[in-house]
């Protein structure tokens, strides 16, 4: 891969670019979907491609392609230079510089921790059996589970190489996998759905029985749900819901949104933005983190960074461009969706600190309110500039400090900063959640939020 990336950089320079960077990746993926006790589909795929950034003076352009023949790479490199000619000048545009320090090693040991050999060792028959076990577990967990919409297992093994004309040359490999299922439960004349999921570096790390059990529990718990009355009250966000909000917060802490005045955190550096009970770090080196890698999407070493701590906003996330614009250095936060997308500022893994109370303790602390176990419409219900949100929710009531009847069809509304300031406690048990970002968080108790129901 690194040789292909070198050739792409040379091609862009030959086509007139002053500087260039190539991101080459190759991955092998597979996916199994099971339904009704049999395998519905089995997918195997390989993909290879290169994305090239070219700079001509202060203009930047990008091109990607999948034709990795000599001619194909030359053509794609020339398209990158051509794209740069269309862009306007931007005084902060330019290639990343090579790191002054060596890439850190993941988890203090070797980068081999990003690879799990079980991805290669488990045959398609083995992983199909795993998907079927997830479905079985969901069906067996509760007789009210009528069916499973789908049980899915997927994994990938990828190799990434980044090369730039400024001297960056880095390559790494990583494996990952996930399993999930959506259970359908029936009762009281209605149908309810529940999601169970797990993720890891390889299939050996997944617990199919636990994934199925979670889906069944989430679906059956909703049977007989009604609407809560509209009011302002304490709200507990379970870990999956908290993670969705934390992912939004991570996006809003990207320097790009901040510099362009499109973040609720713009102008709040060093200010009080949260209760002290809410602490979040970005950590691109956590060995268990799905988004961990030795370097970010433009070859800058990853690191651990406190974002919100002690109630105050400690840092924004920077890539090379936004760091130059702010007169600081990159935090290793260039994220990349693969060779088809240019790097942009983004969190790696967001880690929320745990507190002292388990879920029962949080409910007792809340006294009277609601637990939200699922939200819908986050992509349409949040104003990314102001952080104001109103999203659909379901969950259950808290009465006298204990879990009570299930609730559905209500909304919760607040804004991100007000919500963080209203955090009263973080739970003691955190989990990894991959929804809209990579987040490890416990449940959070919010002192007050608007709940709109009947």
């Amino acid at each position: 891969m690194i040789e292909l990336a070198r050739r792409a950089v040379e091609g862009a320079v030959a086509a007139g670019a002053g500087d260039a960077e190539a991101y080459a990746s190759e991955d092998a993926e597979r996916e199994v979907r099971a339904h009704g006790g049999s395998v519905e589909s089995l997918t195997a795929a390989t993909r290879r491609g290169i994305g090239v950034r070219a700079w001509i003076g202060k203009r930047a352009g990008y091109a990607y392609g999948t034709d990795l023949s000599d001619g194909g790479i030359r053509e794609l490199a020339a398209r990158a230079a051509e794209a740069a000619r269309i862009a306007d000048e931007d005084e902060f545009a330019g290639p990343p510089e090579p790191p002054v320090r060596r890439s850190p090693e993941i988890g203090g040991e070797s980068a081999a921790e990003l690879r799990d050999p079980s991805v290669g060792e488990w045959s398609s028959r083995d992983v199909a059996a795993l998907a079927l076990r997830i479905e079985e577990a969901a069906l067996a967990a509760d007789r009210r589970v009528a069916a499973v919409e789908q049980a899915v297992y997927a994994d990938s093994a990828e190799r990434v190489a980044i090369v730039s004309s400024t001297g960056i040359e880095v390559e790494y490999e990583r494996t990952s996998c996930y399993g999930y299922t959506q259970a359908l439960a029936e009762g009281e004349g209605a149908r309810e759905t529940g999601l169970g999921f797990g993720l890891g570096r390889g299939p050996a790390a997944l617990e199919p029985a636990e994934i199925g059990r979670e889906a069944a529990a989430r679906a059956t718990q909703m049977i007989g749900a009604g609407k809560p009355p509209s009011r302002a009250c304490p709200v507990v966000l379970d870990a999956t819901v908290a993670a969705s909000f934390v992912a939004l917060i991570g996006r809003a802490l990207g320097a790009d949104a901040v510099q362009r005045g499109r973040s609720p955190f713009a102008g709040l550096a060093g200010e009080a933005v949260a209760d002290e009970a809410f602490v979040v770090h970005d950590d691109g080196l956590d060995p268990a983190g799905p988004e961990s890698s030795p370097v970010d999407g433009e070859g800058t070493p990853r690191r651990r960074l406190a974002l919100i701590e002690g109630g105050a906003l400690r840092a924004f996330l920077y890539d090379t461009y936004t760091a130059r614009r702010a007169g600081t250095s990159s935090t290793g936060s260039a994220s990349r969706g693969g060779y088809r997308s240019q790097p942009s500022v983004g969190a790696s893994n967001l880690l929320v600190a745990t507190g002292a109370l388990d879920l029962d303790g949080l409910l007792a602390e809340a006294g009277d309110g609601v637990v939200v176990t699922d939200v819908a419409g986050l992509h349409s219900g949040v104003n990314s500039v102001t952080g104001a949100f109103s999203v659909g929710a379901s969950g259950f009531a808290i009465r006298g400090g204990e879990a009570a009847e299930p609730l559905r069809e209500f909304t919760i509304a607040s804004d991100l900063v007000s919500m963080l300031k209203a955090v009263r406690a973080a739970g003691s048990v955190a989990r990894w959640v991959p929804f809209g970002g990579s987040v490890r968080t416990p449940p959070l108790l919010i002192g007050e939020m608007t709940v709109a129901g009947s």
Partner: protein
Amino acid sequence: MTELIDPGVAERVLRRALAGGGEFAEVFCERGAGLTLAIDESRIESVQSGASAGAGVRVLSEGTTYFAHVDGLDPDDLVRAAGEAAAALRAESAEPRPLRAEAVEPQPIELRPAEVAAERKAELLRELDSRGRSAGPEVSELTASYAEVRREVAVTNSDGLLSGDDRTRVRIGVQAVARREGEVQTGSETLGGHRGFELFEDDPGAIAEAAAGKALTLLDAGPAPAGSMPVVIGGGFGGVLFHEMTGHGLEADHVQKGASVYAGRLGAQVAQPLLTAYDDGRMPNEWGSDSIDDEGTPTRQTMVIEDGRLVSFLHDRLTAARDGVAPTGNGRRESFRHLPVPRMTNTYIAPGDAEPEAMIAEVEKGFYAASFAGGQVDPATGDFVFGVSEGYLIEAGRVTRPCRGATLIGNCLEALLAIDAVGSDFEMKTGVCGKAGQKVPVGTGQGHVRVRAMTVGGTDV
């Protein structure tokens, strides 16, 4: 189009795919090229040129789909993909039928975007920028984007099909931000089609003014109401309501798994008789249109609700065969890297006979959702949620002050039955729909529609 794959090669690949047995094999080839650029802070940036080619091969055997995809369209790539797809199959080989090439008329494109100078595209964005910013001094930021893509596809299968399509789409979008003291509001608008650059001949700058106008209007917004009340939905992108709350539940894969509230309701009265709705992949040059779907089935107009009665689901080949009906041309996929699944194309509520003004005049106290930011539905339970991007109070039959941050929430079976007026106006809008990890372009449309009662989730309790 079918020059993407030579008939001789197609036959060889299909034979390889069926070498270990199977009832059906298919090869989907695609060559795509696109350009996107954006303007932000009045500067052209994020210029991106993409090109990809590849193929996906699937084999159906005893209820299981085996699928493999590769980058590249060399005959060797295709044979390799076929080999991978069939890797787990051990039965006696099956024989594909002789191929016959279908003649397909692609959607007419007058001005191929790739042949338009890049500078004209940059100029278009500069015009959007200046038009939007000149809407008012309170417009503080504006971003606009331009995207063009051409996808040539070929589909061949062991039933003897060899077909193809040549698809060109263009789309522009504007997001404006307006500020007044501490208040910040955004407004956005898009324009797109299965069309060439000619789409932008007729005043594209109007969408920038519209986006900025929405943001400016919302500066006067108060909190949204909370609770159940009559809701009037705007035309055009208001159709995303029907798309989400009903359209997804009509996709036959959900139905057949019992994961749709519409399962078992074919022929049932699911709406008032005043409502008729269609999915139509043939609407000329519409954003969600194609000449064939991604399994080679010609697209068509499918009536899904006739006078309130549910009359059809939306099928791909697989679900149609299971139900013993003809495929409806809804087998779509994001790219050669994805398996086709039943998807909507352009979905709309047909115009009714109510005047929009009269529909509002009949509401004493309610909510007017002029446009949505998007929505989401769980087809199995029918629960849905919509973010309102532009909403107003209705008081004493009149649209009064704008509201910020409203959400509509409900259950689709109840909400569809509660539609008590359909407007005579009509408009189509563009959207990008996600399902099973795949995004496809879809059109949504309707005139104004009134729902007798719906939960509005605001902060004004």
